[in-house]
């Protein structure tokens, strides 16, 4: 039995179905991320777990207990909001103590637990401050402490980092993850930032238009996307148009240059035109290795990003981006220079369904 189970969850608002056929099982202590574009139903699903919305169909179980129709204040769930949602009239310590007071703990126990939590979030001196006297990052840490103080069964975070600036976002990301690991708390984290999802999660649920597109570990979702949406939403992707020459052996042509595609979603029909995906990091310039696919093109653009140099190579109708590491001994080619790019058949993925 899994710790948190969502079974056949559906949510309908009037004529709109915003979440559909959502199934997910989460292990105790697992960190699962909902990833998807704006409006795909991440928040709605999270709010159903929290009890702020009741599913139109389906069941939610926590630790074997059906909580589908329980009120939010009966679920023992910790929630962290994008907008921090600290109580402005209370000090940091009183904010953290709020849930403990509701639970009717003794003032001694509360004082001790608040102290512990402030230590955990590394703000031990801030108990007497008011929320408006804290930075955004500090406020969000207090919100985290407040949610965790009651030892919730599940921790839910709805884009907790998106209101913060880039530096804080990175450090808080690591802080949340290590805290989650050390407490072993089952966590659902909502984000539309794929880098956040890839770097933090045990598993990612990729969502699109109210449906689950794929559930898997970051490595799996990134390298073996099961749908075209996942392939294009997670990571940067080159999408090319290829014509199938021989479906059985995976031979296709891209702008009349023949290559072999090692992976495909669905069967290939000879002569059909399909979308083909290729990650920038799988492409090597000028056949540096023994990669089996090679194509001729012209450098169209070079952007120097520091450790990485990103180049755009045009064939005829199609163009791809590729990444090389910066090498002080070998300056990148000029614009307009003819080059050869190479990649392995396994890195070339023929996408399912319609062409673009």
């Amino acid at each position, binding site marked *: 039995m899994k710790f948190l189970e969502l079974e056949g969850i559906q949510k309908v608002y009037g004529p709109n179905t915003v979440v559909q056929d959502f199934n997910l099982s989460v292990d105790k202590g697992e960190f699962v991320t909902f990833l998807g574009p704006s409006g795909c139903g991440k928040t709605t699903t999270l709010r159903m777990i929290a009890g*702020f919305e009741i599913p139109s169909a389906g069941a939610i179980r926590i630790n074997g207990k059906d909580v589908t129709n329980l009120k939010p*204040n009966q679920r023992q769930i910790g929630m962290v909001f994008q907008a921090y949602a600290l*109580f402005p009239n209370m000090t940091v310590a009183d904010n953290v103590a*709020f849930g403990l007071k509701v639970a009717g703990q003794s003032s001694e126990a509360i004082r001790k637990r608040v102290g512990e939590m402030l230590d955990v979030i590394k703000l031990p001196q801030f108990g007497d401050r008011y929320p408006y006297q804290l930075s955004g990052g500090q406020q969000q840490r207090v919100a985290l402490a407040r949610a965790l103080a009651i030892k919730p069964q599940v921790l839910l975070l709805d884009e907790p980092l998106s209101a913060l600036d880039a530096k804080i976002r990175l450090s808080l990301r690591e802080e949340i993850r290590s805290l989650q690991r050390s407490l072993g708390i089952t966590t659902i984290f909502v984000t539309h930032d794929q880098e956040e999802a890839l770097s933090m999660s045990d598993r990612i649920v990729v969502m699109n238009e109210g449906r689950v597109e794929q559930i898997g570990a970051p490595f799996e979702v990134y390298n073996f996307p099961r749908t075209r949406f996942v392939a294009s939403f997670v990571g940067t992707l080159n999408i090319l148009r290829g014509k199938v020459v021989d479906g059985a052996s995976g031979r296709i042509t891209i702008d009349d240059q023949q290559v072999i595609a090692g992976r495909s979603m669905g069967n290939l029909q000879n002569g059909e035109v399909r979308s083909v995906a290729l990650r920038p990091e799988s492409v090597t310039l000028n056949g540096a290795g023994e990669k089996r696919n090679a194509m001729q093109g012209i450098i169209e653009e070079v952007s120097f990003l520091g450790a990485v140099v990103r180049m755009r190579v045009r064939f005829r109708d199609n163009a791809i981006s590729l990444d090389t590491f910066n090498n002080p001994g070998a300056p990148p080619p000029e614009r307009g220079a003819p080059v050869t790019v190479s990649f392995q058949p396994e890195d070339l993925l023929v996408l399912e369904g319609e062409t673009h």
Partner: protein
Amino acid sequence: MKSSKVGPWLAIILGALYFIVPLIATFEFSLRMKRGQYSFEAYRIVLADPQFRATFLFSTIVALAAIVVGALLVVPTAYWVQLRLRRLRPLIEFITLLPLVIPAIVIVFGYIRMYNSSSILPLTSTAAGTNVLLTIGYVTLALPYMYRAVDTGLRAIDVRVLTEAAQSLGAGWGRILFRVIFPNVRVAVLSGAFLTFAIVIGEFTLASLLNRPAFGPYLQLMGANRAYEPSALAIIAFAVTWACMGLIQLVGRGARGATPVR
């Protein structure tokens, strides 16, 4: 350039004169009780009058009761409208504005008809019942101000998110209202309270027609029978009202500027 500045100033000066001259005249008159010299004799007499004290105390108590009842009525209502019934907001706003449109005399005649001694709820047949009716009437009269103040206060905080945060921490409605919502609209409730006080303290129609010993009817009685004391009373009432306004400003500023850093 110059004429464009003269115009507004002229308007301001005229407006100020319109308000200030009668006030000064009243004040000046109230000082002239003793022949040939300025004195606070009229004020002394007024303040020493047991009637004054009794009626002022009565009105103050009714005002406080109206404030408490009004706050308990308005805050949860405005909160619920903001949280769950957004679509009803125009309707609720309209209802809260009605007391500005319906004259107090209409309201009080309605009350007397509805709650007379032969009705199902004969509030007017006892003094205590009539006091309740009076309080409720004042809550109604103050409703437009109280509602507006509280609604503005609620808009300044994210009601929904705070509610959900409290709920996820296990809180029920009572705790959410009294520990989270009320404290965060404290300033708004207070400014609504001062306005209520200012309205109630000098109110005549309701108190007179319900025959309660309030400050308003006392003012009227004095005005009809004395020369200097009414002026003194008018100045006192005016001062009380202005003190209320001043307190609104003070409390409002205090809440924003407070920096409790140690």
